[in-house]
C-alpha cells in the first residue's frame, strides 16, 4: 500500500516489441492477448489487452499470460495499474 493508495491492476499491458505490427500481433496471439495497436507516437510500443485476465485486481495475477514477460522478443512489458488522478 503506497501512501494510503493500493494499486489496482488492469488487464491492459504496454509492451515494447521491435519488428513491426505483425511481430507484435504474433506475440499477442501466442499468449492470448489482443493487440490494440501502437501507443500514440511511441515507436515499437504496443497496447495489449488480455480478455482472460480480470479487469481490476488488487494483485498482479500470475498465469500463462505472465510468460510474455520472459519472451525474448519482448524487450519490455508493463501491466497497467490505475493511477488516481484528480481534477484541479
Amino acid at each position: 500500500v503506497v501512501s494510503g493508495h493500493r494499486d489496482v491492476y488492469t488487464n491492459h499491458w504496454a509492451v515494447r516489441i521491435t519488428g513491426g505490427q505483425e511481430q507484435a500481433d504474433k506475440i499477442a496471439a501466442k499468449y492470448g492477448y489482443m493487440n490494440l495497436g501502437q501507443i500514440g507516437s511511441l515507436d515499437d510500443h504496443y497496447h495489449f489487452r488480455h480478455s482472460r485476465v480480470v479487469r481490476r485486481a488488487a494483485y498482479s495475477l500470475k498465469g500463462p499470460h505472465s510468460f510474455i514477460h520472459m519472451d525474448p522478443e519482448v524487450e519490455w512489458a508493463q501491466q497497467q495499474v490505475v493511477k488516481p488522478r484528480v481534477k484541479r
Partner: protein
Amino acid sequence: QAQSDPSFIHFNDPKWSNMWYIHCNDKSSRCRSEMNILAAWQRGYTGKNVVVTILDDGIEMNHPDLAQNYDHLASYDVNGNDHDPTPRYDSRNENIHGTRCAGEVAAVANNSHCIVGVAYNAHIGGIRMLDGDVTDIVEAKSLGIRPDYIDIYSASWGPKDDGKTVDGPGPLTKQAFEQGIKKGRKGLGSIFVWASGNGGRQGDHCSCDGYTSNIYTISISSTTENGNKPWYLEVCSSIMATTYSSGEFNERKIVTTDLRQHCTDGHTGTSVSAPIVAGIIALVLEANLLLTWRDVQHLLVKTSRPVHLKADDWMINAAGHTVSHLYGFGLVDAEAMVLEARKWMTVPHQHTCSQIPERRTRYIHAGQSLNSSITTTGCSEDPEQHVDYLEHVVVKVLVVHPRRGDLEINLISPSGTRSQLLAKRLFDSSNEGFRNWEFMTVHFWGERAEGTWTLEIIDSPSKLRNAEVLGNLKEWTLILYGTSQNPYQPGSAQHSHSRMLEIPAPEEILDGPELDEEDEYNVTQTSRPCHSECGNQACDGPKADHCLNCVHFSFGSLKSGRTCVSHCPLGYYEDIVSRRCRRCYKGCERCAARSAGDCLSCRRGFYLNILNSSCTDTCPPGYFADENQRQCLKCLDPCMRCLRYADRCTACREGYSLAGMTCVPECTNGTFFHLEEMTCSPCHSSCRTCTGPGKEECIQCAEDYLQQEWRCVQTCIPGYYSGEAAGVPHKMCHRCEENCLSCSGPGTTCTKCKEGYSLVSRTCIVNAFCNNADEVFCEMVKSNRLCEKKLYRQFCCRTCLMNG
C-alpha cells in the same frame, strides 16, 4: 488609437463585463488587470491558426461558445477509443471540467454567448482521458495525439493533492513528453502547460507532483484579483508563472463556459490558470510560429512580473530575475510576450550536464540539517554538454527516512541563490522516503552554472519519532540544463553574422570552414604589441586574428577569418609541417591526420571502431556503441550482438538462447536454466519445459500430463475436463460449466453436480428451483408414466426431470 482607448474593444458576450481578469475599465474600482491580454488583442493577436487541446474529461463541442472554434482534429476520446470526445453526462455533473477549461482558451467572441476566450480565434479541441481508468498508456496516448497538428496541450489535473502523495508520469508518459518535445510541431517541440495544484489547504507541495516538476511542462499557479494567495494554492520551485483565478470569497471569480451549454462563475481552483496561459501562448505563437518549446519558457521568464502579487519569498536571482515559490517569475504579461516574440531569436541548443558527488551514505539526524556539496565546471570539458547559462536545474535524490513529511530540502547555487525544493508536509507520514525522485527548480534561470552547489536537507520532526531510526541520503545527482552561450547576447554564435572575432566554442568549429590557401595580409605596421600567438612577422592589430604569421598554428580561412591558436580545436589536427589546423575526417573529434582511419576520438553520435580507427555511426556485429566513451566496445561472450551495454544481449552464439537480454545456455527439454548456478537444472517430473524446479513452474507439460492453470497434472481436478489447447502440444484442463463437478466436455455435458444442485438435462439446476411435492407420490407418478403431463411435472420436477 487602440492603445490609448482601452474601451476600444467591446464584445456583446453577456459575461464580458465580468471578465475583470482581461479588462477593467471602471476607474471607480481598484481593479487591476495586469495580464495585458486586451493589449495583445489590440495589436492584432487573437490566436489565429494556432491549435490548442485540453486533456481532461471531454469537451462539449456543440456548446454555442465553443462550436465555431472546435477542431475535431485536435480531439480524441481515449477512454472510449473513438473520435468523439463529448463528455459523459451524469446526474452529478462530474464531467464539466474539460468544457470549462476549453472556454478559457477559445470561447468565441461577440457571439452573445457567455464569455470571450483568451485566444478567441484559436482552434480548440479536447482529449477525453480522465473519465475512466487512467493508466500510463492512457496518459501517454493522450500526450501523443497528432503532435504535428496540435501546438499546445493544456492539463489541469494530476496526482492527489492530499499532501502525502508522491507520484508522477510513468515510463511511457515520460517518453511521450520527450517524444513531443523532440518531434512535436515539426521539431519545434510540443508545448505542455500544467496547473500546479490545489493542495494548499493540505500543506501539499507541487515538487511531489512529477507532472508540474517535469522540465517539459510549463507549471502555472494562480493568484486572486488583489494579488493574494488563494487558499488552494500549493508552492514549489518548478512554478514558472501565474495567472488570475478565483480566490477569496470577497474577491471576484473567473467566469467559464459550463456543461449543458451553460455559463458559470462558480469555478474555483488553479485549473483555469493552465488554459489561460495556453491561450496566451496561442497569441504568442501567432506572433512567431517558429518559437521552440524552450523559447516559450524563456519568454515567460523574461516577461512575467511580480506586479501586485503578495508573497513573502520574492527574491532576485543572480541573473536579475525576480522569482517566488508561489508565483514563479510572476504574473504572465500577454502583451510583453507577443512583443518579445516578434523579434525573438531562437535560443541556442539545450545542453545537459549531470554531476554525481562521491557516493557515500550521509545520515540525516532528527532536528539537524545535512549539507552535501558538489563543485562543477558545468561540464566545460565537453563542448556538447557544457552548460554555462542555466535554465532548469534538477536534483535527483535517493533518500531513506522514517517520516518523509518531516523533510525540507533546499538547493543553493554557486551565486548564493537558495531554492526550496521541498517544504515539510504535515500529512506525509510515509516511510518510503524518496527513491530517485527528481526535484526541479527554475529559480536559477540565467545564472552561471560553474562553482559549488550545496544540497541542504533539514529534518525537523513534527511528531515524536524514534531518534535511533535515522534517515540517510544514499545518493543524489545534480542535473543542469542550459546553454553554453549567453542565450540573449546578440553576439553569441547563432545571432552574429559578422566575422568570428574570438575562437568560437568547439561545437561550432566541428563544422567549421575548409582551409583556404593563405593570402598575404596587406596591412600597415602598428606600433602596439602583437598578440602572443603572433609569429615574427608583426601584425595589423592587437588580436590573434591580426597576426601575419603564427607561433604555433593558424586556423580558419580568409572567408571566415583566420586566427593564430596555441592548439587546434576539436575536429582539427595540428599539421606540424605547415603549422596549420587541418580538419579531421567526418565524424572525428580528434585525429592524427585527415583520413578516415586516423581518428582518435569521435563526435557525439559517432563511435570509434577500434578495428580500423574510424568513426562510424553504427558498430560492427559483436560490438556495441558505448555512449560515454563513444567507442565500439566488444559484447560480452556469449553475446553475439548487444545493445548499449556489453551484457545486454540481442543475439547469442551457438548453444545459447536469449532470456530477456541475457544469453542463457540452451537447456534440453526437461531442464531449465538456473540463473544463480548458471547451469541447466531439472524441471519437475510433470513438466516438459519449465522456468524453474517447482511443479508450478511448467511452461509445457510432460507426456500424458494435462495443463491445469499453471501446473501439469495427470487427471483434471473436479469441475474440469481435459481438452485440446491452442498453441501447446499437451492437453489442458478446461473448466466445466457453472456448478458442475464432472463433465465430458464444454457446454451442457455435466454428469455430476455440486451439493445443492440437481442434474437436469445434463445441466445443474439449484435445488430451490426444482423440487418434489411428495417423494412417494412422485415415485408413483413416474412409475405410471405421468411425467409427460405438465401438471405432474411441476409437482414432481426433480423426479420427472432428473435423468440420473
